[in-house]
């Protein structure tokens, strides 16, 4: 995936968010302390917040000019935001059945109510839901945060590519990402490439594009 941020700027109460880079990657990590603007950056990509100016391209499509619902950007927010009035199945299939083959890892959860899931299960459901729309890429906000190591490994194995993965944990970024952008008080660094770790399997499922 080629991801281009062309001079994206958004004034926030505390600081201005600025991102301008061009990177060819299948897994971009966004690393920074809490409150640095990581989530805001994802919301801009997903189309939930409009930047003051700037454009964003994913594989030469200018997604920043598309409506939110036309962007096909899968977004898994930190608070997972599962629809509380729907079953797991209805949640997962809300965006379509594009990723139906992935549902085998949901079989055990499908008919439960979302309020009865554990933290790890909720993340799995939110991830599956974001994948069924045939997204160009997935935005994962602190997807592994607060899970124990076994749960993390379980979830990591399910994450397809390409992704933008947000975390304040260096280890998680190292385990999942090819490139990393550091962000502090809204200022994004240039992308740096990361050494490939044992986790970044070349046989990962690819999102259809």
């Amino acid at each position, binding site marked *: 995936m080629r991801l281009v941020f062309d001079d994206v700027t958004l004034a926030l109460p505390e600081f201005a968010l600025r991102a301008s880079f061009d990177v060819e990657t299948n897994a971009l990590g966004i690393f920074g302390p809490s409150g640095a603007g990581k989530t805001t950056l994802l919301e801009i990509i997903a189309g939930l917040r409009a930047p003051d100016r700037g454009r964003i391209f994913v594989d030469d499509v200018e997604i920043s000019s598309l409506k*939110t*619902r036309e962007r096909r*950007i899968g*977004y898994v*927010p930190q*608070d997972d*935001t599962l*629809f509380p009035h729907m079953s797991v199945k209805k949640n997962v299939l*809300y965006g379509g059945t594009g990723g139906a083959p992935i549902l085998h890892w949901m079989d055990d959860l499908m008919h439960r109510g979302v309020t009865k899931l554990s933290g790890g299960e909720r993340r799995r459901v939110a991830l599956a*839901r974001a994948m069924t729309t045939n997204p160009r890429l997935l935005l994962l906000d602190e997807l592994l945060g607060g899970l124990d190591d076994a749960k993390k490994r379980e979830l990591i194995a399910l994450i397809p590519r390409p992704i933008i993965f947000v975390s304040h944990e260096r280890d998680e970024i190292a385990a999942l990402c090819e490139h990393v952008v550091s962000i502090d008080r809204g200022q994004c660094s240039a992308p740096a490439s990361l050494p490939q770790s044992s986790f970044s399997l070349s046989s990962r499922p690819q999102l259809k594009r």
Partner: protein
Amino acid sequence: MIAFTIEMALVATALLLIPGTLIAWLLARRAWRGKALVETFVMLPLVMPPVATGLILLRLFGRRGVIGSRLGFDVVFTWRAVVLAMTVMAFPLFVRTARVAFEHVSRRYEDIARTLGAGEIRVFFTITLPLASRGIIAGAVIAFARALGEFGATILIAGNIEGQTSTIATSIYTLVQLGEDRAAMSLLLVSVVIAFGAIFASELLLRKA
């Protein structure tokens, strides 16, 4: 006459359900010109003397009224006037409750639905409305209870014609004036029971919402 009152209150509640829900949603979720004006206008019957509201309705819906002269059927002093008075007086209570219900629905759910490809109409019917439904039903129950007890506007535009426009409230008034306290007391009991049941039900609904 008790059955007639309940019937009229049900019709009034049914009539205000769709326009009331629409206005409540517009007030809760959209910014538009003249919003404050509409807001005030909708709430007016709540604070004006009901008799004054009745007088306005009489002017509008009388045979020579702006609306009444164009209708082709009589409103004033018929059952339609009973429904009209009940609808207008219960409308603000319904809109208030439904509006709060809409405001309590987290925008995050709507946002995520948009990233999953849902358009605004789908977002409304699959996310916003179901999540607000308890509050909307509670609003309908309160509106129904208010409609049952309507007196001031009713007596002005519908009168108190036995067997035609007499309601529980207007009958109590007549019975007291005639000195038939016993009959008045039994009607009073009926209205207390109905009102208590309705408010109790709506409180339960709102608590779980």
